[in-house]
């Protein structure tokens, strides 16, 4: 099998790393008023959708108004979490020094507290992308998403857990930061999660309060309809976010790595791992915005702190560089990537699908090669 280290010669890896650095430097030097204008416009659209959605639910007795309201509110939550929240919290707009766009201060419209998430996502996931036993986003500690994860009868429920995680994704993301699996294994004490838990309770109370108590109550006799509407909007956002995020790292041809492989990694090798461990989703401009440009997962993993609107602009260049070095550039339409992820979830529920021959074929067989595209 092709290991992480022996795809390219060390010189090639460093040369490749320098090409990536050059793209980064060029974009960083070019950041300015246009990027701010863009995110401000997205924020305006999100707030307008939110106000419209909440407003329409006051007329929720009229089915078209209810449907339109839920639609607007779902879109608002999707924009808030993906193109705004996720990206702002990555520090993509920290250079603007605008407190409303500050990664340290931003809070998003979901139960997971920003502060907890920033640690597990920005630091753990982005530093240790797809390294088994280190990247806690591999299966979120509940699923078997990699053949190298040792099978256990528990994993027979893989598809059920995945479906539950998709439906309750915001709660899954919140609880993820508790590192429950590590507490069970005794790697982390319950007491050490005190602050994390306090933030969860506070944030969840506010979110549940507005979506399931205050807004329904304000609509008086329509309260049950409003509650149902808000729950539907949260569900839509949950399913969407789950789908996009799982397509980013878990389609069949995406690779995972071992700790030994990634020891003493250089910057070039780190870039290389990001490319091999991520997958893009093809689609139009609106689709990209609704995914928070995570449809450019590869570019996002290379440059997590560059404004996401820049990813489509550099994708062609990144892909061409991958082709030059004979590296795969995983990409495909949503339905195909989703199907691939679903198949993996089902396959890995079973004990006989796993290490090590399975892994080899997944690595070598799959992958739309950029060179071929």
């Amino acid at each position: 099998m092709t290991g992480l280290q022996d795809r390219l010669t060390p010189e090639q890896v460093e040369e490749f790393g320098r090409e990536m650095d050059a793209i980064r430097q060029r974009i960083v030097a070019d950041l300015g008023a246009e990027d701010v204008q863009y995110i401000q416009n997205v924020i305006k659209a999100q707030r307008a959708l939110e106000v419209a959605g909440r407003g329409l639910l006051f007329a929720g007795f009229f089915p078209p108004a209810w449907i339109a309201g839920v639609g607007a509110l779902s879109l608002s939550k999707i924009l808030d979490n993906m193109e705004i929240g996720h990206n702002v919290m990555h520090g993509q707009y920290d250079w603007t020094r605008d407190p409303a766009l500050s990664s340290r201060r931003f809070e998003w419209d979901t139960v997971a507290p920003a502060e907890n998430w920033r640690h597990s996502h920005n630091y753990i996931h982005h530093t240790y992308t797809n390294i088994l036993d280190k990247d806690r986003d591999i299966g979120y500690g509940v699923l078997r998403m990699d053949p190298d994860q040792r099978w256990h009868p528990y994993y027979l429920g893989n598809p059920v857990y995945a479906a539950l995680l998709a439906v309750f994704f915001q709660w899954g993301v919140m609880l993820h930061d508790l590192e429950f699996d590590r507490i069970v294994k005794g790697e982390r004490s319950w007491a050490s999660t005190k602050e994390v838990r306090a933030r969860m309770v506070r944030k969840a109370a506010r979110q549940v309060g507005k979506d399931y108590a205050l807004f329904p109550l304000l609509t008086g006799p329509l309260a049950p309809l409003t509650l149902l509407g808000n729950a539907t909007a949260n569900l839509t956002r949950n399913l969407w976010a789950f789908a996009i995020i799982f397509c980013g790292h878990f389609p069949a041809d995406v690779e995972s790595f071992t700790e030994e492989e990634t020891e003493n990694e250089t910057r070039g090798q780190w870039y290389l791992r990001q490319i091999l461990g991520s997958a893009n989703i093809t689609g139009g401009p609106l689709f990209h915005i609704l995914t928070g440009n995570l449809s450019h997962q590869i570019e996002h993993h290379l440059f997590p702190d560059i404004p996401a609107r820049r990813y489509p602009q550099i994708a062609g260049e990144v892909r061409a560089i991958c082709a030059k070095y004979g590296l795969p550039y995983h990409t495909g339409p949503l339905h195909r990537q989703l199907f691939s992820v679903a198949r993996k979830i089902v396959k890995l529920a079973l004990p006989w699908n796993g290490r090590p021959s399975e892994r080899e074929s997944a690595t070598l067989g799959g992958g739309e090669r950029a060179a071929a595209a």
Partner: protein
Amino acid sequence: MPRIAALAEALLTPHGADRYLELIHPMLVRREIRGVVTSVRRQTADTVTFTVRPSRAWRGFTAGQYVRITVDIDGVRRTRCYSPASSQHRRDELEFTVKADPSGLVSRHLHERITEGAVLGLSEPDGAFTLPRPRPGRLVLISGGSGITPVLSMLRTLADEGHRGEIVFLHYANTADDVLYRDELADLARRLPGLRVVLGYTHQDSGGDLHGFCTAEHLDAVAPDRAGTLTYLCGPPGLLTAVRALTEHRGTSERLRTEDFAPPSLELDTTNATGTVRFAHSGREIANSGRPLLEQAEEAGLSPEHGCRMGICFSCTTVKARGCVRNALSGELSHDDDEEIQLCISVPVGDVEINA
């Protein structure tokens, strides 16, 4: 009203009401302080004077204090300190005078670009360069150039209070053409019986009352030392140094109050600097040059958030994960891990790791 506001905040969580109100109009914000520019004039070639109506969160200031003004330049928010020149008793309007630094960023932007209707970010006022209560019977207010702003604010405040004590207002400008608030000062002299306005020209030897840089003769002539006189001083570094030396000579330093617009000189030792500075978030490393961490971070290609670059505004406050730094203003050492430090005035002592 507070109940409605609390309900609105609960409904608009997590972003808060301001983030929605500002989309209707930037001045509607309730918690943040902003100001809309209501008039702009240019008294001299290299200055701009503008008035600002603050938003509802503004709680007033004390004459002599400063406010941090934030402007957006090419998509980046920039913050600098400016002292209002208006009376503290005018709650609805603040006046600022800014001198354009030819190689400065914010002052030049304000000088060239500011227009009526522009919305600026404002901070709570800050600073201890203020008059005591009860008001002193004898006051000397000394300023140079744009340093006139905090002492003019004091003078206008005293005028609004109908103050009857003795005040000497000594102002230095390069030439007669550079004098700020000339008419206003003449007007105040008519309203305040105890006020004497003295104009000094540093680069012109005719007109005005005094000529050349501030000397002991100047002070003796207009503000002879008399018991209990409080002196307030603000201006360019040269003026500050001269007056400080003169008061020290007279033995009246404890009755001198000063405000620095320009960064005070930091105690730096660049020859004996050792160790490596590591910026943890970006992974950048640089050999410690002995300069403040803000400059070293910029040298390493980072652009940390900052404001005054002189230890006043706390915009650059960052967590120091490991190592020891020295506060170049106070000389104090910080040894503890995970301590917040101000990058602009902190100098590494050996290896340090900063969360930037």
